[in-house]
């Protein structure tokens, strides 16, 4: 991992651990017992080494999460399973209307987005909480094409929408008084005999 900076290595150590475990598990499937014990010992050593490496938090400084002990689940659980939690939660929310769960995406953003000089930083911006890790792992996150990237309370921090985002009012008077052709399809009763 020589191509990594110390900072990156520290903050993404857990991915390395995960990969080691997978490799070891595959290897352990076919080798004899003594080697297997050695393998487990090696894995334990690696894990101990790596957990020492990620004792320093990957949480963005200046975010609300930085002041908290743990996320909505233990940290190692969140590191490995957050995508599963989010996926199940999203289906329950969209299809069943379950709201207010602890695994909602807006909760991640509310807590993990950094605030710099009284402005919330989008969570998927370069070097921010979500992007930093996903960028390293080459996992593209599409959540924020649709989902809000800054905390919901931060509306006042970022001010109102820029003028370019405020279009003309969307009242459309259709159809033109003399043209009810489009309307025939819509409302047969408006037809002329």
């Amino acid at each position: 991992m020589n191509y990594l900076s110390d900072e990156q290595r520290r903050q993404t150590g857990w991915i390395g651990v995960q990969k080691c475990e997978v490799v070891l598990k595959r290897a352990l499937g076919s080798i004899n017992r003594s080697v297997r014990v050695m393998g487990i010992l090696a894995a334990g050593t690696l894990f101990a080494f790596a957990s020492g490496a990620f004792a320093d938090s990957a949480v963005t400084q200046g975010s609300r999460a930085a002041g908290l002990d743990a996320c909505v689940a233990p940290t190692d659980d969140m590191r490995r399973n957050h995508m599963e939690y989010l996926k199940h939660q999203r289906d329950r929310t969209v299809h069943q209307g379950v709201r207010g769960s602890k695994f909602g995406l807006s909760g991640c953003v509310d807590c993990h987005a950094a605030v710099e000089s009284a402005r919330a930083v989008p969570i998927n911006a370069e070097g921010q909480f979500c992007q930093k890790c996903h960028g390293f792992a080459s996992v593209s996150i599409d959540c924020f094409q649709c989902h809000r990237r800054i905390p919901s309370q931060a509306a006042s921090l970022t001010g109102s929408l820029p003028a370019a985002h405020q279009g003309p009012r969307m009242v459309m008077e259709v159809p033109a008084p003399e043209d009810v052709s489009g309307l025939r399809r819509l409302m047969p009763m408006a037809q002329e005999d």
Partner: protein
Amino acid sequence: MSDTTEQPDMDRRKFLGTTAVVAGVTLAPGVVLHSIAAAEGESGPVTDEVRWGMLIDTSKCADGCSACVDACDKENGISVHAMPEGASPETWNAQRPQWIRAVKLRDRQTGKTTRLPLMCQHCEFPPCVDVCPTGASFKRADGVVLVDRHTCIGCRYCMMACPYKARSFIHENAYNQLAAVPRGKGCVESCTFCVQRLDRGEGTTACTEACKQAGHGAIVFGDLKDPESEISKQLKSYPSRQIRADLELNTGVRYSNV
């Protein structure tokens, strides 16, 4: 093959049905009836004990008023798109997402004009759901017709299928969405009956409230299955109609005085 009849064998159906019920019950413990206990602070899943609906009295819809459209825009953060540089304003405006359209009708024979807000009619048998190739367009248990943007591929079949022209496609990137209403480029969307409000238990929509506040009170929103709800009482007392009732979609939005 000569003795086949049009009707399926009903006895066989009954037998299979009963068997399925018995199997379901006996297999259930620990296997089928796995349910996720609602965590603290969570709202429960919606049920079909409710069917949300809307009654719009067009005689109360005031000319020149845009309270419902503005309220919808504000509640759902609809104007969060920037016009791309070099785009023609005409095209841009024509392609703007619209959840509610204020439509004016004129009877050519009598000259009588009627104005009404037209939005997703939340059909019981929604054509948009029928045609969706990915299952993104769906109807919730409580009758609200929605698009699951996670599965929507933006093919726009539903827009073609909708007899009410109720759906919009988002052509441009969106920024500053509201946390409760995620919206983005490449998906189709339409009125959600302010589903975020319903899930919070408010039982009303932004347009209904805005219309009431503007002093018109043309929109009544409520549970069609509850005989004691305001909307059920009004539907029972006054004549109302579904737009394109001939399509037998059983819309959730009804109009009176059209």
